[in-house]
């Protein structure tokens, strides 16, 4: 049986309450950390675990923590990024609503490790009911002495604040999130300085994803080495995957990193295969921002080996033949999906969500959306395809924050792998614009 670090107790009735969570061994990690470990030792265990940020970029969490500046007399902050708005990603939402105390416990341990006395959970505004769940959990933890002044008699104080966002995807970008938390317009900041040096209110700040923070109680309980023993190479531990699309069993799955992609899609333990009578066409493996891959390339590397669910294996082949694990939003498409329409839909999202600060993203996302819209609705020209590639190239890497890249990659990769389909839309507009029409030309379905 595969190890479950986050979801082991998720089906226990009443797990959202303090008492049930506590009965399942909850808050023992806080006790262990506070009574037997120094903050530095907690950081050390997290470093040893090799756990990487689960919000998308995959930056090693222990390393991020050790970069935190510690000037005298300046407060430090921990901010949990619960803005989860990436299309295809819904794991943090699931975790927070079903087992909120796991996040609260993780926040207490992480805040202790970083020396923060006031920490924030920034939740996307649409999830009001989750905010209520978290607030209730915080009140319970406070009543039991795990939050507030002098926690467990150690003299350490911690206040947890839940802040609803305004429903903007861009506020998931860590520096936009900090601006928003400060009560300003959610515009990403130019970096450097990084939040570790100048973050919230210009004080040193760590921003981590919900899932990242939630792993810390297990790491404290079992040790960093035990965590690092799970997974393959630099992809240690488990990862929540939000599986959606044309599969038999959509849902959130906790996998040990290293599961073959093929098993993840077809095994009954996870997605349970493509819906009956259909075939796999393409997968977006890590949330809408990562490059889309056709069936043959998502299942196998360019050299024919099986592709695995790890950071390294998914990005094997660079952008030519690879993609990224990203936030773990696994979107599966069968042969009834129109790649042009899907790409237009993603482009529409990024156009809508661009903050508008920097010119390549503000103007380029809208341009791409309009051209894709034209192609999808039968008014494309042949040169539009190269135009899209060029616009994507001129956005990529030239923007303030990675939203520009996130908008460019889906378009560039869809054209890279499904160019025929774009051309078919342009040369056969009559056919392509029929309701439900999909390209049926030559392509590798599995």
């Amino acid at each position, binding site marked *: 049986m595969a190890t479950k670090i986050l979801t082991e107790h998720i089906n226990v009735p009443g797990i959202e309450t303090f008492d049930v969570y506590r009965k399942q061994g909850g808050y023992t990690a806080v006790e262990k950390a506070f009574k037997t470990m120094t903050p530095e030792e907690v950081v050390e265990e997290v470093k040893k675990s090799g756990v990487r940020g689960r919000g998308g970029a995959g930056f090693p969490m222990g390393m991020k923590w050790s970069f935190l500046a510690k000037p005298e007399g300046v407060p430090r902050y921990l901010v949990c990024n619960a803005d989860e708005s990436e299309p295809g990603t819904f794991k943090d939402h699931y975790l927070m609503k079903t087992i909120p105390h796991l996040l609260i416990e993780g926040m207490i341990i992480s805040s202790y490790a970083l020396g923060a006395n006031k920490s924030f959970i920034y939740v996307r505004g649409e999830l009001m009911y989750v905010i209520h769940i978290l607030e209730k959990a915080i009140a319970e933890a406070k009543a039991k002495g795990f939050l507030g002044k002098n926690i467990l008699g150690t003299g350490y104080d911690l206040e947890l604040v839940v802040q609803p966002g305004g429903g903007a995807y861009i506020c998931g970008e860590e520096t936009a999130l900090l601006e928003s938390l400060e009560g300003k317009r959610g515009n990403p900041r130019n970096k450097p300085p990084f939040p570790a040096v100048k973050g919230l209110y210009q004080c040193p700040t760590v921003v981590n994803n919900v899932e990242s923070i939630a792993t810390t109680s297990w790491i404290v309980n079992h040790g960093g080495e035990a965590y690092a023993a799970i997974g393959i190479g630099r992809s240690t531990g488990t990862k929540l995957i939000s599986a959606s699309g044309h599969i038999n069993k959509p849902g959130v799955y906790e996998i040990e990193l290293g599961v073959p992609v093929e098993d993840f899609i077809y095994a009954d333990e996870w997605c349970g295969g493509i819906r009956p009578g259909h075939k796999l066409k393409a997968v977006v493996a890590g949330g809408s921002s990562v490059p889309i891959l056709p069936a043959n390339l998502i299942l196998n590397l360019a050299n024919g080996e099986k592709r695995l669910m790890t950071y390294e294996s998914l990005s094997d082949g660079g952008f030519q033949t690879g993609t990224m694990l990203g936030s773990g939003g696994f979107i599966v498409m069968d042969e009834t999906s129109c790649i042009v329409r899907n790409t237009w839909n993603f482009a529409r999202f990024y156009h809508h969500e661009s903050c508008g*600060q920097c010119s390549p993203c503000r103007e380029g996302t809208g341009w791409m959306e309009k051209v894709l819209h034209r192609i999808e609705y039968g008014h494309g020209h042949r040169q539009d395809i190269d135009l899209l590639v060029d616009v994507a190239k001129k956005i990529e890497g030239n923007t303030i924050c990675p939203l520009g890249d996130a908008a460019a990659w889906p378009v560039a990769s869809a054209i890279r792998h499904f160019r025929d389909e774009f051309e078919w839309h342009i040369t056969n507009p009559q056919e392509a614009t029929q309701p439900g029409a999909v390209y049926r030309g030559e392509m590798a379905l599995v």
Partner: protein
Amino acid sequence: MEDNKPQLFKVTVDGIEVEVEPGTTILQAARKIGPEVAPPAMCYYQPLKGSGGKCRACLVRVAAGSAKDPRPMPKLVASCITPVQDGMVVENTTNQQVIDARNGIVEFLLINHPLDCPVCDQAGECDLQNFAFDHGKATTRYEEDRRTFEKHDIGPYIQLHMTRCILCYRCVYTADQITNKRVHGVLGRGDAAEIGTYIEKAIDNDFSGNVIDVCPVGALTDKTYRFKNRVWFTKPVDAHRDCPTCSGKVTLWYRGEEVIRVTARKNEWNEVTEFICNTCRFDQKKTSDWVIEGPTKISRSSVISANKYRADTIKPDFGKRLAAATYKPIDDKRDTSQLDIQQLPPERFAKTLPSALDKEP
């Protein structure tokens, strides 16, 4: 390093070495060398704290991060906000990737721009015109609808023509830092973002007029000057007055004997360093209100002042014939050679910019 003097950093921009103080940005270091290697800046405005980093016009490549760590930076960086390191090597005009990126930025800035220069008051002193001329293409690949906005009067003196705005945020920083009460900011997101005065409130503030001067395009214009003349037909003269509110140092723009516009003075980078009050700008339009210093020396480059619209200097393929038919060479009265500048201190004219003609092989 016992020395108290800060150690200077050596930086190389396009092969030219310069020494600057630690903390200097790449852009400022390049400006120190001269306009030939200074990256264009559409949003950065030195007197405004926090400005820059947005338009990406000033992207450069850092070929070597520093003497200690000579690795190149992986991406192009915004030179206006990136501080130099000792031994840094920067490529600006010499790097194809930079040139391509800049080309892209011009294109992005123009796709939603109305290109109504013929009726725009800013034409002739517009940063976007200059930028597009230097780094843009003569054709467009954009065939979609352009975003449009209604014109808004913000107060009695200023008109906002949002359709022309490039969202550089300069006016926001100005309202924030120069005026005492900000009722002006960015509303909305992405390409629907717009400059707004909250609930259409008039900006009535002693220093609000400065947003007109900082605006790189014709999005914020002076209503007292609207459609009065083209800037290249007006004659700028430096003048001052005893003003209780501001420095009182201005440029008067004459048409014949009439002052048709008052602005703050701009340096060679097109930046105002001494902001002026609304009384000086909007209410003092008689020569007798002012002590005249002498003709303004326009040292900055613009498509007009550098005679770039002269038909024989138009480079792009599209238009020699069109240009020859449409434009006449402009006899620029502000050319230094034709101005009597003797009575002014010579250091003010230390630099004359090369014209487009000089750049031609």
